[in-house]
């Protein structure tokens, strides 16, 4: 079983970006700005021959971290064994230092929801999640880190807070955390959490990787759309976590309204400055 000491031994990768096809050429033109890449597993698994070719090219030039979306580790019905096998094949092909998935469910009752859906913060959900993580790790023999999600619904029947739920997962599975600081900020804004109190309650010593990006406002609701530059509040959270934790890698996760790469590079350089100060 993975343990906290294993997490400390993971290599420090630096600052990178979530790979998206539109800026493939720019990655090679700005090679020095990108320390590593995160590839969305589902883009490769569903992407056909072109995606496989891209993956081979990227594997030859970058350290890659596979990032799963649809393993549905929170599903009470258990895991989709076919998907798990395909994901295991991808992880084996990429040979990464770790891989990541979400603390959520995406499938239930024969329906593929297609989006990360929150779990209730209950002991039953905790048991189900830890059992599924255990099953996944029996098949994929690489360190797994788990990402917090953003949610608009507060699930009823909570027996603990979100930071307590995350801490319990880390303690019971031995997995590290992929802390999405944008999600943390978005939930704090939408649900009125005290962000400093949340940060204090989180197991920051177990954070292996960070995600950051900007979203947009839909009325009075902040949407985690990965569609804009990172706001100052998120930079502030990122800096705090990097200074207080033992972060090994930071990823800019832009999906929509992808700007010229020069703008993305500015954000990468800013993240590098923060990390280098904290790591020196």
């Amino acid at each position: 079983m993975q343990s906290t000491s294993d997490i400390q031994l993971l290599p420090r990768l630096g600052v990178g970006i979530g790979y998206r096809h539109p800026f493939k050429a720019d990655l090679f033109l700005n090679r020095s700005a990108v320390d590593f890449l995160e590839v969305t597993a589902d883009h490769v698994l569903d992407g056909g021959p072109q995606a496989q070719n891209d993956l081979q090219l990227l594997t030859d030039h970058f350290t890659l971290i596979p990032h799963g979306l649809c393993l549905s580790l929170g599903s009470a019905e258990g895991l989709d064994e076919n998907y798990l096998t395909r994901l295991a094949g991808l992880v084996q092909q990429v040979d990464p230092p770790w891989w990541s998935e979400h603390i959520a469910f995406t499938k239930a009752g024969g329906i593929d929801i297609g989006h990360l859906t929150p779990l209730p913060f209950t002991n039953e959900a905790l048991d189900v999640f830890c059992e599924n993580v255990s099953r996944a790790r029996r098949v994929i023999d690489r360190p797994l880190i788990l990402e917090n999600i953003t949610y608009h619904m507060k699930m009823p029947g909570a027996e603990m807070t979100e930071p307590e739920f995350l801490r319990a997962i880390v303690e019971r599975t031995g997995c590290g955390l992929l802390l999405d600081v944008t999600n943390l900020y978005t939930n704090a804004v939408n649900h009125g959490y005290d962000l400093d109190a949340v940060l204090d309650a989180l197991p920051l010593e177990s954070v292996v990787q960070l995600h950051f990006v900007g979203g947009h406002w839909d009325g009075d609701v902040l949407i985690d759309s990965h569609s804009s530059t990172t706001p100052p509040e998120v930079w502030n959270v990122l800096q705090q976590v990097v200074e207080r934790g033992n972060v090994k890698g930071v990823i800019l996760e832009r999906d929509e309204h992808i700007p010229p790469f020069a703008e993305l590079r500015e954000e990468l350089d800013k993240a590098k400055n923060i990390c280098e100060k904290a790591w020196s």
Partner: protein
Amino acid sequence: MSLAEQQAALARILTDKHIRASTKEATVHDHQDWSQVCSIDSEQIEHQAKALIRKRLGCARHLLPRTIATMGPQFVTWFTEYAETHPLAGPRRYEADAQRFGDLVRGRLNSIQTAAIKRDLIDIQLRHGRKRVVFGVFPIAFNTSPDDEPTKQVPRRFFIWVRQPFRSHYIVVRLPWWRLRKEEPQHTNASSQQSLSS
């Protein structure tokens, strides 16, 4: 309500606007088996459902670029209408989603938009799918009956060339020849009635 039941109920509510509407109007007492899910704030459920559609819309934008260019803002309206009642399904679900949306709206589009969506859907098949795509159909045999006038001769056999995936590339292959079914002489009602009476 167990976690599995709660998740299944939530999945149905989030992917079908009609179920959301009915649970919003009903009281928790009407849906005792869904009581936990119904106790979630309906506005929060709507926001979560919108996030789900936004995600699908983002994938469709990537897969149907020409369609969006020709449809403009109408694309978002129509896709949202479609997604509210059609959950994702099957393997390569986002490609299948774009394909189903394309098939559904094709009849409502003008000729320029139809041409755009056809090209986008073929692109999906070529780049994202693993389907065979018919590359060409060539006649190789014609009617040979001496009674046939040259102008009435129609092709009877064809070679079909298809582009099909092979490992990480595509190859063009020829399928075994294919023959049209010979037309049977059709009996008219009058002649069949005659034979019955005789």
